[in-house]
């Protein structure tokens, strides 16, 4: 990333940090983490399991809401405020602008998630738990999910209005976490008529379950780091594809 894209990333970071909406979403995420203890109290036992499960799910939703509410409207805000003209009429290219926006947003979103993660870690330690490799793997998975969701939000933001981009990002999240169902629907010879179609869809549709390690944090099972690594590669390939699409769409736009 060159100097101009870095400058755009820093400006995006500063702008997003000042956004009150971001604060609201972060309060929601941290609130989910803290509230998870109340759900733990309602359980017969397994308090720490409830704390970890609901906190990590809350953080996944935090990543989604950040992408939907801050990321999807990011390009539209630049156009609305006319700052995009100032930037593009100077030396920055549209590719640099998209890349800068992407990196800036990912920094902010990661900061929010790491903040929520730190609260979760403290919360787990406060209630007598420990921070192990499964929790770290789940956090890494969430950070990777944030990367691809930010790319989706930017791609859709370059393509359409912020509201539609938000809904599209939400749909991507649901599809990404529901793709595994396609494989289960045809497992053990079930639905043979649709097996071929499902198989193609399973390969083609995005699959966020590749980096979803939040379900195994309390099972005591060892972390499959190799799968997480391959999942990271998979997510980065989707991110590259979406960013390339965002650049193409943004280049075609007439201001």
């Amino acid at each position, binding site marked *: 990333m060159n100097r101009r894209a870095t400058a755009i990333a820093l400006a995006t970071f500063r702008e997003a940090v000042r956004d009150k909406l971001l604060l609201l979403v972060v309060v929601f995420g941290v609130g989910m983490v803290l509230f998870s203890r109340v759900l733990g109290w309602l359980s017969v036992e397994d308090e720490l*399991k409830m704390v970890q499960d609901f906190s*990590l799910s809350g953080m996944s939703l935090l990543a989604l809401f950040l992408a939907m509410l801050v990321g999807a409207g990011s390009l539209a805000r630049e156009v609305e405020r006319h700052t995009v003209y100032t930037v593009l009429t100077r030396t920055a290219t549209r590719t640099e602008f998209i890349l800068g926006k992407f990196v800036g947003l990912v920094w902010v979103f990661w900061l929010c998630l790491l903040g929520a993660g730190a609260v979760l870690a403290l919360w787990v330690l406060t209630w007598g738990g420990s921070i192990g490799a499964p929790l770290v793997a789940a956090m890494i998975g969430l950070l990777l999910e944030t990367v691809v969701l930010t790319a989706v939000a930017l791609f859709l933001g370059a393509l359409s209005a912020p509201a539609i981009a938000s809904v599209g990002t939400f749909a991507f999240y649901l599809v990404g976490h529901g793709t595994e169902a396609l494989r289960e629907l045809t497992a053990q010879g079930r639905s043979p008529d649709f097996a071929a179609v499902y198989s193609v869809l399973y390969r083609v549709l995005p699959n966020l379950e590749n980096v979803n390690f939040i379900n195994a944090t309390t099972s005591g099972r060892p972390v499959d780091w190799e799968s997480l690594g391959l999942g990271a590669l998979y997510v980065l390939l989707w991110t590259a594809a979406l960013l390339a699409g965002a650049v193409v769409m943004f280049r075609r736009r007439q201001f």
Partner: protein
Amino acid sequence: MVGAVAAAAVLQGGLGEANAARRRNDFRYTPDREVARVLSFGHRSSLADALWLRALPDFAREFDDRALKERWLNGVFDVVTDLDPTFYTAYSYGSTYLALINKQADSAIALLERGIARYQAMEAEDGRRYAAGTRLRIDLAMAYWMHKRDRAATIRHLEIAVERPDCDFLTRNMLVGLKLEDRDDLIALSYSAQLLDHQNPQVRAKAAEDLEYTKLRIARRVQREFAAEQGRDAASLDELRAGCGLEPELAAMVFETVEMSADGKLTSWRHDELRVQSTMRSMEVAAQIYRRDNGRWPTIDWFFEGAGNSLLVLRRLDIPQGKRFVIDDEGRVSVVEDE
């Protein structure tokens, strides 16, 4: 306005009854496990938690329709354990509820067996053992013991459980007791003997104590059998040993540390010795906790006081005859001659 509120209050009495009657069979919908898996959108563990939390208050409710309740219960356990196959509480609490409250021992056993099968698959896949897998096996053995009165199945599952390194001593001793009843003395002795070279010194010490106790139990059984056969108590240890019917090698091992008192009571000096050592270790651990909480070491008398002592209450019987415990300034407990 007052009239309207008063009329509403009067109406509420009847409405409340109607509400309660409606709730009696108002089962909450429990999604099919495949639907739940798809609609969890990757948050399977959290959805399992949410469904479990939603079901918990209903476990205490009264239901008129038993068949409907069974369907609901099976649905809840099915979906929760499918979404999170490692949800130990759902298996454990679920099987207890099914067996004790709903009188469905077979369903309880089926639930535990499902959990065991899932843990076995995980263990085969991961190449390691999980403590919850052991606990479920013990729960299953206890379910067969308490609810089905199936001694053979209990022994079968306990035998599998004690082969696992994280099996507790209480469970081991239950199997030892069953094996002694069946006169499988060598096998009973082997359950403690196999832990004598365990890497953990505390496990080794407990195994040695249990081994001596098993020997003493065999000797006492032999004594009872002798009395039943002969119509009198054995006059001496040698007479008991000669007429015990045990294999000579086994008899030598069993009677190696056994003594007979003047009133014919059998004791084991080695077991007493190991029990005192074990008691002293427990006292030292309790003393450490006491000091952390109170800033000073406890007195020996404190260990024998029930009031205010939730850590370790000893009986006077735990003191060896003619001796007493003392605790030094560093929290070490020892036995000295009584003055």
